[in-house]
């Protein structure tokens, strides 16, 4: 393995050994504290274009599994770990993490003092980073000059509608970037799923006569999306039960006049206690966010807060005061992460049943 370097926009350099593709890439660097689920995390579209540092010391030891993809093609820009394991569980090919990244042209770096790097990033916040062969001034200048794209939704969301048929309730997913976990959960309820581009019009959605609507997780910043999306949400929430997740939650908030604020420090992991305010019950879920809904901006006549992160106080869920529409910032599909968060889908489907019943009467 070849000596390579991680360089940060602030000029800091971390040496390591290269694995995966020998490519040079640029991306925003963030750290993840989850101890399990590396495959799900690196294939999750919410991390499109980002470089992920893993706090967990050994990565790759459970192989690459057919059932652990969150998208068929990973689009992260790099992976930084301390120790890399070369285990394969694939019956057809010897597919380990190193080969997986090579196949997708993603560079990795290992034998990095990741704890030092995380302690550094915890202070500086996310910044631009690059994995390079030579960490000279030229490389750093180039990194500083690089402008990263903020069009992650545009590049990951589906441009065309498609169906994932089932025999149960008809659920329309508005796609801002869609991880498999959500489709897997909808499959558990045997939902009849239509996935639509976020550019779909209100009329087109309503023509499909959905029983429920899901706003998907995204990657990226909701404020880069056109206002038509907010209008779409405002109309649909008053007609059909709605669940927003991740970016979908942020859009739901924006559509109802709330604002976003940056978190004091980004949080990517599954160890923060989240409290359901109405019952004070605590549970844990996969979270990945740099922004949160600003609680002070919430118009109490429209929305109220349903979940909160007990560590940083960040809003983790909202509900509309007049319509059966709600949203969560965390990822309730448990892919990866604790299963207790999946009750959000149970709540959604009960709301859908209720809605269907009321219409029938």
């Amino acid at each position, binding site marked *: 393995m070849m000596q390579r370097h991680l360089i940060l926009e602030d000029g800091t350099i971390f040496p390591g050994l290269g694995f995966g593709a020998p490519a040079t890439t640029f991306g925003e660097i963030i750290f993840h504290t989850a101890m399990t689920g590396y495959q799900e995390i690196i294939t999750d579209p919410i991390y499109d274009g980002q470089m992920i540092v893993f706090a967990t010391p050994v990565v790759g030891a*459970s192989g690459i599994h057919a059932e652990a993809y969150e998208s068929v093609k990973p689009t992260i820009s790099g992976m930084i770990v301390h120790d890399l394991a070369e285990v394969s569980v694939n019956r057809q090919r010897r597919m380990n993490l190193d080969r997986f990244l090579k196949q997708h042209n993603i560079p990795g770096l290992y034998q990095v003092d990741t704890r030092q790097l995380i302690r550094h990033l915890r202070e500086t916040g996310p910044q631009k980073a690059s994995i390079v062969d030579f960490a000279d001034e030229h490389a750093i200048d180039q990194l500083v000059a690089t402008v990263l794209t903020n069009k992650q939704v545009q590049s990951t969301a589906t441009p065309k509608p498609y169906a994932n048929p089932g025999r149960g309730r008809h659920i329309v997913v508005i796609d801002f970037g869609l991880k498999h976990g959500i489709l897997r959960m909808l499959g558990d309820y045997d939902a009849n799923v239509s996935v639509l581009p976020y550019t779909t019009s209100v009329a087109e959605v309503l023509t499909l006569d959905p029983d429920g609507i899901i706003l998907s997780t995204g990657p990226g910043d909701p404020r880069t999306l056109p206002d038509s999306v907010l209008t779409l949400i405002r109309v649909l929430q008053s007609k059909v039960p709605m669940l927003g997740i991740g970016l979908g939650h942020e859009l739901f908030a924006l559509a109802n006049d709330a604002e976003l604020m940056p978190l004091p420090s980004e949080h990517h992991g599954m160890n923060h206690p989240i409290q359901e305010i109405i019952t004070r*019950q605590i549970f844990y879920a996969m979270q990945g966010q740099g922004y949160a809904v600003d609680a002070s901006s919430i118009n109490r006549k429209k929305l109220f807060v349903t979940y909160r992160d007990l560590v940083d106080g960040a809003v983790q869920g909202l509900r509309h005061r007049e319509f059966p529409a709600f949203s969560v910032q965390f990822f309730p599909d448990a892919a*990866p992460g604790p299963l207790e968060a999946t009750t959000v889908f149970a709540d959604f489907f009960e709301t859908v049943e209720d809605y269907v019943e009321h219409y029938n009467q």
Partner: protein
Amino acid sequence: MSNITINNKIKKILFIGAGANDFGREAEHDAAIYQVMPELRGHGIEVFVVDENPYALSLESLAATTFWEPLTIENLKKIVKENNIDTVAPLFGGEASLRLWAEVVQSWEHGDGSVPNTLGLSIEMLLKVNNIPALTAYMAKNGLPVINNYVLKAQDEANELLRELQLPLMIRALHPNQTNTRHIVERLDDFEEAVNLAKLQSVTQEVIISKAINGLKEVSIEVLRDFRGNKMQIGASEDMDPIGIHTADSLSVSPILTIQDQLISKMRDYAFRVADILQLQGVMHVQFAVDDDTNKIYIIKVSPYIDQMATRMSLATGYPTMLVTINLALGVALEDIVLPHNFGKNTAIMEPMMDHVVVKLPVFPFGELAQAGVHVNRQLNSVQKSIGTTLGFGRTFIEALEKAIRSAHFNNASFSPTNMAYINDDELIQQLIHPQDNRVLLLIEAIKRGYEIDELAELTAIDEFYFYQLKHLHTLEEEIEADIDSIKSLRRGKKYGLSDGLLARFWHTDFNIIRTLAKENHIDVTYKAVEPSAGEFPENARQYYATYESENESVQINADSVLVIGSGAFRMGDAASGGYATTITMSELRRLQYPTIIMNNNPSDATLLPHLADKQYLEPLEISDVMRVVELEKPQAIVIPGNRRKLIKALRDLGQQVIILPKEKHTPSGPNENQSEFALNLFYDGQNIYPINLTQHMAGEVRIIPQIANLPHEISQKEIDSPGVYQIIWYQNTVTWIDTIDAADIVHDSWLRPMPFGQIAYMTKVMDVQWIRLTIRAALHELTDQDVTTLETINQQPIVQPLSMVAADVNYRLHLQPSEVIDGTRFEIGVGVNYYE
């Protein structure tokens, strides 16, 4: 703890200790009780504790009223009634005290008054947890994946079941009378014997039979639950060794590395559901069998109490499990728990994450026994053979493994890598299928001989990951060996945790040369904090481990600090006494207000409790490990057990002030069965020698002789070089207890030695004189006038109370199948207390 309102009906609480140490029971329970008792005083709760173990620190705690008494139903009832105890906390004493308390509750009679409240579990659930078939059925009824149990009495029923279920089968006793062992029967010939043995172990002569699941992965998950039903996971580990080898004898790894998230999440969910159906308020360890080819999971054991997993995870993650657990048991909700100020604000409610690997290695008694010519069955199976545990911390599996090996096996000849070179291929295959204690070396040897990884994984049922790792280690070692004196190789070797000693052996030189070479080339150790947020938040970390990375986080704590070198794992003969002595030492140093640093690697005693030191190094205890810490901390003094002679010399050569805790190199063995060992006990304060008393040690029992002890002659001070408790020893062929000693006997054929720590613990309790504390004060010249008065008059009242120390009844035959009877006096594992007439 805060002024949170807890259940205000609790006025008087009784902790039940775990009793004598045994296989599977080190000092973890006593450590837990010792840690939590002071927390209750602030709530105006009166605290009581009962235990029979002379090594129990909780019996010397100022936070409780203590009862040093045999743990019997009658004694417990008496204590409860006489002191109007309203609440009992058995879960800190583990399985043994839970079972004892269940028996007390079941035998409660109308005239006994009202049954005290049980903390953590309702009486109904307590009884269920004590009845494996009932618990299994309860879990099955609630949709949890368990393996069916069949309870039977007669051999013909057993045979019928055997035809139905097929081998392998697991056989256990229902209502076991003492240790609860599981036998896995793979051969028809062993079936009848295993059933008979289980029947003998059962109070009701009933046997539980279930399908065995050998070869699956064994996983442990540790969870908490509060009265509102909030649950969190605070630790998880996987065993490298498959099911079929007792989990205590397995090499265990945290975090779980080889199992994917979906299966781990499922196990977490099952563990939560078990906690819910038991309506637990506290901590629970759930063991699973996992088939990661078919994604099948079975719950194999549920332990809703403190056990070794609880203490190990607490140390591995830095999460304060015991403090949180006592809060939960008292009825404080998770979100309301307030920890002492040295913990992070949100530490209690954040699930701990790890950015390091922790390997647990068991410590077996085979070496000590072999030295005495006792041969035992070294094949690992479902019956526990190990008696101690050590942890290795590192940033990779290999580094953690190397450090765990050094912690567990230093001075152990059977763990020398060259041992395996002579084994023939047939024997190698046999041992791969039926592993022994040194299987890690065997696996490396198999790799060396060119066996394929798939093949080995199939043969051993060990995950491929471990073979890739060991192969990597083997290649690394070969390359380093071939690359003599290379700085690049040295750097690589250090990064993977290879010790100076091992590198020196590869390069045919001395470890001091390696040390110097590393220093000259700036290959410097870095210490990383063990803290539960894995770097996400700044934490006031106190625990550190060494690795070779770029950033060091540990800085010198104070120029006036005292560094205490622990004694590592629980070993045969030494029993829990080493941990006892180290812990009391630290407690005394703290009391005298010295900034205290501890170095140790034993998760199962109190030495690494967070409140006992300002800083902890979770490290092996070889000379180079200690030297690196000394160089960084520059302590004003270092406390070392007296048997570490090379280390003492090396530190003195550096000009360090060393305080020796007097201890023999090898723990003295007791008298043989026809003899009594007599001792004249004395204390040396650095200037004067004070006689204490006389003792007789016979048939596993130590008693004080009711005679005033005087020094028979001038003892040359050359024989005693540091303050402490010593004894003049002689033997006589007598097997009766005697009242008087003839001074002539003392002079004749006698020899001097430090008093074993075990006897010090006994003397401390029976005389109510703190001998270890006096030793430390003497060494630091901090003895008070009152101390001196005590010492001058201590021999005037030889017997305070008629209490003797007795060796606990340990079933060596069951655990070790020795070639001859193992003498419990010579090879002590546990001790208890006895009142004599």
